[in-house]
């Protein structure tokens, strides 16, 4: 539903944008394709599932690359070009959410996940090694179950 809507909306908007961009800017100085690519990788192709403007083979993406090229040639900085698209399409156009406000959740989550995991493992390892150390203090006669286990492990080898 919503993609269909976007597709329908996007075409006329783009035509308008291209003509505005083409009309407003003076003849372009050559722009580095690397910069165009760099900007395009951060933007979402509006008619695709999850491809960036840099990657998508669709006509829409090719037109959007054209806009990026034109705006860079007119002297805009990459951040300004990106802001230009955000102003028109909303945050949705960015392939990685900006690191502020509610979005911080998604950026911090991996850190929290890893940290929680590490703390958990550290606690468990500590507890288990401590139990071990307490056990060593006990008399050193090995119980039958243990010696059976040793025998089994020796047989298994590595």
């Amino acid at each position: 539903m919503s993609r269909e809507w976007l597709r329908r909306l996007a075409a006329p908007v783009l035509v308008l944008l291209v003509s505005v961009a083409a009309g407003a800017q003076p003849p372009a100085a050559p722009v580095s394709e690397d910069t165009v690519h760099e900007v395009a990788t951060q933007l979402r192709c509006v008619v695709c599932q999850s491809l960036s403007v840099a990657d998508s083979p669709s006509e829409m993406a090719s037109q959007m690359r054209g806009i990026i090229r034109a705006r860079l040639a007119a002297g805009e900085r990459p951040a300004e070009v990106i802001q230009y698209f955000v102003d028109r399409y909303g945050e949705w156009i960015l392939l990685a959410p900006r690191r502020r406000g509610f979005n911080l959740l998604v950026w911090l989550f991996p850190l929290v996940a890893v940290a929680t995991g590490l703390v958990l493992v550290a606690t468990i390892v500590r507890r288990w090694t401590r139990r071990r150390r307490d056990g060593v203090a006990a008399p050193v006669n090995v119980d039958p179950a243990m010696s059976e286990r040793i025998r089994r492990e020796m047989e298994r080898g590595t």
Partner: protein
Amino acid sequence: MTADLGFGMTLVALVLAVYGGAAAGVGARTGRAALVESAQHAALGVFVLITACFALLTYAFLTFDFSVRYVATNTNLGTPFYYRITGVWGALEGSIILWSWMLALYTMIVVLRHRSTARELYPWALATMLGILAFFLLVMTVAAPPFQRHTPVPADGRGLNPLLEDTGMITHPVALYLGFTGFTVPFAFAMAALATGRVGDAWLALTRRWAIVAWYFLSLGLLIGGWWSYHVLGWGGYWAWDPVENAAFMPWLTGTAFLHSVMIQERRRMLKLWNISLVILTFGLTLFGTFLTRSGVIASVHSFTQGAIGILFLSFLALVLLTALGLVAWRWEVLRSQGDLDSVVSRESAFLLNNVLLVAAAFTVFFGTVFPLLSEAVRGVKVSVGAPFFNQVNVPLFLSLIFLMGVGPLIAWRRASLDNLARNFLWPVVLGVVAAAAAFVLGVRSSLAALAFAAAAFVLATIALDFGRATRARLRAGESLLPAMGGLVRRHNRRYGGFVVHLGILIIALGVTGSQAWSVQTEMTLRPGETAELVGYRVRFDGLTAVEESNHFKVVGAFTVSNGRVLGVLRPAKKFYPQEQSPIAYVDYRLGLKEDIYLVLGDFARDGRQATVKLQVNRLVSWIWIGGAVLTLGALLAILPDRRATA
């Protein structure tokens, strides 16, 4: 007619599966063997019926039976023979049949293999599998019925999604679904272990090989998906962090964690609770993935209520998780393992760390995938979470995992002495540092790429060191070189199978690193005779031709590629399908070990006087596919029957 017959068979299969699941469950509880036997017959019946449904639907596709709605929406008179077969699972309804059929197949194999070897666990496992089958058959009857009458019968159908007209359509879904459904078997035995309270080693021993099989197929499915994306979708990449891809990647991550943590339980009788949880999580993620990709929830948080399928999957997922967690709580006392560790520096710790990283990566992918829904629900603002995010957060995790891949297999169990560490890791560390330096000298400026090379060299060295040492020991015992190596691999097939899989992953990682770090591209509009240039390649535009195919119209560009001498003519195209609004890009490429040349045809003038072409030189991508082949070898080696156990 066909629709009614198919629907009838689905219904009977559903009834049989429900009965069989109940009979196996009651039989397991009361110990009445006759009931379990009856459930086995029911399982056979379900298998036969789903096979018949599948055959019937295929027949309907082959004979253009448009009285079946699903056939009419996914094929038309122009669809070539081959794609009429693969078209059977080209959309939701058909893929659910394929899925159920595989599940029924796995159930039959479980019956045949474990009926007499696992008397205690088997009836519960059978009950679980039949219960899950019943759910999928329910989906096939109420939510996504492949057999639905279409009246009036149209003269022609709508046609298959053009992107699915590719040979990858037979291998990719089959491998992926074999992987997805394969994890049902470990899950079923985990449930059996909980139900019987036998949470020790028996269920693990039974399911370890099953888990490897499922894991392997899932890996293969992901890799073929990458290849498909690379050569069909025409965007020059193999992995886009699309929700559909993430849905398959999450169970892969937790499944990988399980394959490793299993070893700690086998060796040290620890982590019973953890292993059961990982299996539940992995199975839950396969269901969640299907929910995510099939319910339409991805498009918008509000759209999934429109179809019954989202609600059904979500309810079933909740049922599965609640049941599983309930069972875990019930068996809490036996699951709590009396862990004991000798030292922090040990293989046990390395494995625990590996598990933390893998599960953290799975959660990261999960959260990133559902975050847009969360944002829409909470803030009412749509955001995208795509490749730039996932690459940034996952690359450090994956690099650490690769490093651990070198540490884990060589560090000593229980307590690694300083001597053990020096003996095993001194040279690999040196080699890793040398590799990083060499990468720097060769012009690698990305610190992540340099780190990746260092980690890869380190792991490679540990594998070589271990294998070399073991071979030398055998040589000293008087064997000659080749028999020594062969015997080693065969006798310790599990260990060396694991090493070979690691090697495959390493090669894939190199391919990914190389393609991310060094691929270049450009885009140019050319007139006939004009040339685009990129890193020493010259691409000359020769002209456009139009071709009429059985079900579409195609505009083909001819481009002569040379680098001093002529390498060949590449023919990227655009395909126009009557049922599609926008054309489909058809890429052409020349694969090489060092780099691929990859051409995408963009806009063109109708009179052929000019065409835009996107030219990419993708570095080292072929190594991803080669790594896949190596991984296959390793997985095969690892599932061979264990020689040591029988010797």
